[in-house]
């Protein structure tokens, strides 16, 4: 049976991510958890969720999954929240940390950029504005609400990589798509029906990649 493998590096609550993929894949896939590099070899698709700080996330990933970079480039990959941010070149959280440099651009502090009246973290439902016609957005209206929780935002340099943007005083990159990679700042596993639709679209798209 094919595996959807969710990476566990001990920093985030995987419950909803696992359950949402289970629900959507409808028993066609086995949803399992990877704690070592070995576990990733067997994966048909890789999901990297994440909460918390970028620095400790990068540290744990490089220690526990030394060949993660290679796997991300070679298998259908879905990054969520921190799993989206670490794809960029650098995050400026905690005085800065180098990330995977798969997507050109950086991750910056909201509180330095936006009006004092707006609260940080950017938490709650906000509009995701699609920038690309792509199978990943199938059956999701061009502008739709998704659920966000984050204090740092990503700016992708290349327009080619940007799948959607969102406005919180400033426009930021809310999802990217490149080759076999889709990753988003928001939480599809907490975004009700369009979130589940997105996960379902990802699975369908992944199947077409082979």
């Amino acid at each position, binding site marked *: 049976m094919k595996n959807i493998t969710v990476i566990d590096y001990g920093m985030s609550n995987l419950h909803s991510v696992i359950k*949402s993929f289970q*629900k959507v894949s409808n028993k066609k896939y086995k949803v399992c958890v990877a704690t070592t590099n070995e576990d990733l070899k067997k994966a048909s698709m890789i999901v990297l969720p994440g909460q918390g700080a970028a620095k400790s996330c990068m540290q744990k990933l490089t220690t526990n999954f030394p060949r993660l970079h290679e796997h991300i480039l070679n298998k259908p990959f879905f990054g969520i929240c921190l799993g989206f941010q670490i794809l960029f070149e650098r995050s400026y959280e905690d005085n800065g940390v180098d990330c995977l440099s798969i997507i050109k651009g950086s991750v910056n502090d909201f509180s330095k950029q936006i009006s004092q009246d707006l609260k940080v*973290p950017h938490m709650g*439902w*906000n509009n995701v504005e699609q920038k690309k016609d792509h199978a990943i957005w199938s059956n999701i209206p061009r502008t739709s609400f998704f*659920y*966000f929780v984050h204090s740092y935002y990503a700016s992708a340099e290349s327009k080619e990589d940007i799948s959607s943007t969102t406005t919180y005083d400033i426009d930021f990159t809310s999802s990217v798509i490149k080759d076999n990679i889709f990753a988003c700042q928001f939480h599809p596993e907490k975004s*009700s029906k369009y979130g589940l639709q997105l996960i379902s679209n990802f699975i369908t798209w992944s199947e077409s990649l082979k």
Partner: protein
Amino acid sequence: MSVAKRIIPCLDVDKGRVVKGINFIDIVDAGDPVEIAKKYDKEGADEITFLDITASHEGRDNILGVVEQVANEVFIPLTVGGGVKSFSDVRDLLSAGADKVTINTAAVANPDLINEVTDKIGRQCIVVAVDIKKSKEQYNVYTHGGRHKTQLDAVNWCLECQARGAGEILLTSMDKDGTKEGFDNEILSEISNKLSIPVIASGGAGSLQHLYDAISQGKADAVLAASIFHFGEYSITQAKDFLRDKGVFVR
């Protein structure tokens, strides 16, 4: 552009069952948390809050089962509170599938608990519930479900919670709770203006106008209500339409 104002229905859970007369005609089992949560998700609730009111110690584990069942079926943020005493209580609820946990009495008794959760798990998952009542000179904070008066001043306590790392404040006016007269927008706006974290208004919702007032006058980031939704007086959809017509950014 800001983030959408949230509408949050709140469900009281006793020994694993939703209580306090939920009144939906199209629900077969009005005590089933999963069915009710599904219904609210479908109507467009932005989040759901479960308050465990189980009195007996033995019944308390039921809430974990409820959270798990709901989290398996409903994919919107879930907040759970009631009787949370320690870091391990918080961790157990999060592992069961809750996204946020509210603490009240335990936060007053041991404010370091807020720091502990924030440091270990992150500030987004901790909501401090603050029950307040007006006295002559100030608003006092109450604990133990409103039975114990403390000498803490509401504004100062909320600021302290924020400094310790709370992700949100759930502010309940005990003077207004259950009255259906509207929220206490005066203290709400004072606290919301002073804080940089979101404030959820609770206590007093009797009409859709009240929800609007809590957002426009009270500067609330979210409104929590129980009875106006449970008894079918208004649906979440109606509340959203009403607010949208008045120019509020809602989902």
